């Protein structure tokens, strides 16, 4: 690979963080993908805190079987807030809009995304929609859960359902815009020599995610609009009293929301592939299979939505078909887990903080994926559907998996983003704390789920108390774990040691750019001459950091 970091005036160019102008106005009107990434990092952190506070309230309430902290209405609003905020305002944009935004152009040797202004618009659409929703939910309350099932949401629920729906609808457009931007960028702006099969897996993952965003989100938008229409004008679409069909809503909703699960997890898979290869100092095992499995997941993911409806009254044969497809979608995920493991084989493994996050991801994702098989198996799903088993399952994927990957990625690319190193010690402590706290919180939920504890229960029967207590204690540890990276990275932003452009001795174009990169990323367009993850050809890297 050509190396572009030596030229004198390139070094003299100020980084994207420091170049003029850096007034607040300049930041808010920037079209630099790196600054927009920061806008997103700040926003999703804010929403993560809100969603997290709601989760804390939920876990505190559930320490005892009776309702002692919140009223029934308060509880229902709290879990609705938690779900809506975490799914749409944190998880969906989390990796694509932050790390994806920051890294995608640099990883393919481009100066920005294909449509920089569209990128900024995407943030505005997101932040306005999200703030509006949160305001609506906090001010008037929404107690339908994040799933907005009809006819509860369309005819019976009180509160600002329509406002919340409009907010989510608006935020959906942010996803669509980001998706279009990423697809165009990957197709048209790759550096010379960077063929599709030389792309880092992170780029493949973001690309697959963008496809889902563009294809699935419009269906959600239409569905939510129909709920609003029914609520406002009594047009019978979903409510049987008006001649509508309540199951139609579920079909449409899950047609988006199952693929949305993959919007949330695919980018995480991309991040972890980068981290594991780097700290194992080895090419990823089965590169092509890894790339194809991302596409396979994105594709089959569109055909499994009915597994949310096994007990809804859907026909037996539909349930069986969806069950079979849900087993099949697990195959590409299994392929990924085995390939990550095989990548470690005969590697030269370093246990940096980012790596611990990535290893934690693989373990938690494996558990989350395997328990998904129980849900795909129709007869078992009858028992565990709408219980804490499901709650545990998707938190293993979305929190255990996705949040681990996000934090891992944030640590891994932090030197690139900020130009600084953080405390390795505290990074490791946080990874371990989160891993332990997470398992303590969610593992007991599998057990109580199988025993029959339904989800979304404000009060519960006493036989489940001990599981809930353990879960709530775990949540405390988990919350503490989440604070650590905030402090550690926040501290390093100002006082951390300078990292130099490639502290982990990683391959990939992003590590050739300066840290933090100048506004246009590269001095000259880099040229790619070797396959990705060519670690075997590199120095063994003994782990010493630049001083």
């Amino acid at each position: 690979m050509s190396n572009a970091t030596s030229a004198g005036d390139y070094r003299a160019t100020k980084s994207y963080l420091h170049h003029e102008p850096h007034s607040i106005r300049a930041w808010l009107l920037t079209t630099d993908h790196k600054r927009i990434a920061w806008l997103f990092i700040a926003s999703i952190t804010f929403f993560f805190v809100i969603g997290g506070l709601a989760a804390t309230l939920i876990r505190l309430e559930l320490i005892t079987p009776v309702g002692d902290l919140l009223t029934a209405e308060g509880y229902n609003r709290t879990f609705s807030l938690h779900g809506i905020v975490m799914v749409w305002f944190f998880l969906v944009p989390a990796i694509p809009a932050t790390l994806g935004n920051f890294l995608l152009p640099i990883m393919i040797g481009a100066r920005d995304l294909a449509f920089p202004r569209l990128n900024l618009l995407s943030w505005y659409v997101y932040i306005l929609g999200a703030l509006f929703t949160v305001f609506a939910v906090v001010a008037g309350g929404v107690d339908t859960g994040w799933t907005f099932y009809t006819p509860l949401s369309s005819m019976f629920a009180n509160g600002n359902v329509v406002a919340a729906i409009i907010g989510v609808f608006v935020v959906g457009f942010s996803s669509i815009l980001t998706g279009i931007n990423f697809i165009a960028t990957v197709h048209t702006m790759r550096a010379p020599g960077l063929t599709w099969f030389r792309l880092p897996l992170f780029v493949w993952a973001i690309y697959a995610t963008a496809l889902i965003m563009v294809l699935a989100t419009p269906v959600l938008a239409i569905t939510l609009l129909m709920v609003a229409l029914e609520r406002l004008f009594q047009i019978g679409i979903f409510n049987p009293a008006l001649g509508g069909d309540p199951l139609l809503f579920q079909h449409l909703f899950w047609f988006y929301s199952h693929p949305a699960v993959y919007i949330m997890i695919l980018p995480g898979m991309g991040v972890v592939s980068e981290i594991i290869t780097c700290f194992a100092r080895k090419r990823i095992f089965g590169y092509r299979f890894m790339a194809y499995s991302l596409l396979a997941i994105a594709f089959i993911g569109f055909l499994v939505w009915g597994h949310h409806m096994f007990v809804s009254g859907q026909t037996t044969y539909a349930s069986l078909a969806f069950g079979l497809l849900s087993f099949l979608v697990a195959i590409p995920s299994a392929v990924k887990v085995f390939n990550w493991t095989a990548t470690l084989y005969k590697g030269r493994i370093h246990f940096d903080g980012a790596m611990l996050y990535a290893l934690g991801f693989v373990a938690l994702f494996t558990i989350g994926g395997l328990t998904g098989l129980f849900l795909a198996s129709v007869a078992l799903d009858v028992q565990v559907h709408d219980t804490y088993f499901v709650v545990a399952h998707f938190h293993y994927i979305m929190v255990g998996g996705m949040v681990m990957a996000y934090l891992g990625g944030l640590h891994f690319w932090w030197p690139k983003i900020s130009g600084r190193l953080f405390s390795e010690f505290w990074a490791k402590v946080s990874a371990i704390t989160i891993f332990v706290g997470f398992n303590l919180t969610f593992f007991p939920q599998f057990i109580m789920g199988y025993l029959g504890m339904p989800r979304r229960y404000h009060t519960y029967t006493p036989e489940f108390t001990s599981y809930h207590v353990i879960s709530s204690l775990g949540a405390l540890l988990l919350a503490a774990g989440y604070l650590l990276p905030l402090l550690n990275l926040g501290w390093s932003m100002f006082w951390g040691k300078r990292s130099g452009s490639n502290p982990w001795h990683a391959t990939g174009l992003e590590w050739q750019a300066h840290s933090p990169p100048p506004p246009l990323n590269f001095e000259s367009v880099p040229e790619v001459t070797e396959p990705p993850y060519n670690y075997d050809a590199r120095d063994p890297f003994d782990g010493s950091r630049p001083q």
Partner: protein
Amino acid sequence: MNELQQAVEQSPFAASELASDVDLLFYAMLTVCGFVALGVTVAMLDFCIRYRSGKQVDRTLRLRNLRLPEYIWIGVPLLIFLGFFVWGATLFMRYQQLPPEDALRIHGVGKQWMWKFYHPGGQREINELHIPVDRPVVVVLSSEDVIHSFFVPAFRVKQDAVPGRYTRTAFTASEPGTYRLFCAEFCGLKHSKMRGQVEVMSAQHYAEWLDTREQSPTLAAAGEALFRTKGCSGCHAVDSAVHAPDLRGIYGRIVHLRDGRSLRADVAYLRDSILLPEKDVVAGYQPIMPSFADQLTEEELLKILAFLQDFDERDAP
């Protein structure tokens, strides 16, 4: 600890004919998946320790064919998954099997926030369901408002009650005892209070229990009365002046509609005929029947439907 709690905790966790089969599948999958999870973890730990940086060890990859392992870990999981799918599917088909003729038919109506049950003899109960042991039971579910879900963990059954249609779940309780009944689908404010219990009793106790209940006409008899008081017979009686179909023996009959379709008169069809009469108009008749959607409660409706189901040639209204 109160009595109910004690009764629940003394009752077995698997209490229906299907329960142990479901558990068998569950534990089989748990074992296989447990091994996979353990295998991955052990392999990861082993590689991490053996190949940690700084350790002197042979790191030359001797694998010739790098695709072979990929095919193995696509193929083997595929086979295992297919096996589990078939196992789960056959079990599920048993859930869906038509219940035998002599099954006890109970109507369950979900309503924010309670469960109402109607026994064939007309006995009603709220948030409690008494059933005999070892006898197939079918619960036909409907809802008066939003979606609810009938969930008895000890029987391993769950079925949504959806407004506007009938769904059903069948089970055979195998152990006397007291079991939790939950609403599993979020249904608004007091969702978590929408719970109760199922009392499984011996056939004899069940019969005795039925007798202790307030004497009320059977569902079908109550339906017959409604058929008259609500004015149905005014049009549908054989000697009526209005040209309307004769409803004797209607249940299960093939009906020909004005738009050329033909279908079998099942419960869903009968329900729609009463609530949405303009949807399926019978061939040879004028669409003059008014909709009864605003005039019948869910309970009255199911009584009329119970009546129509055993309304045959013998009875004259």
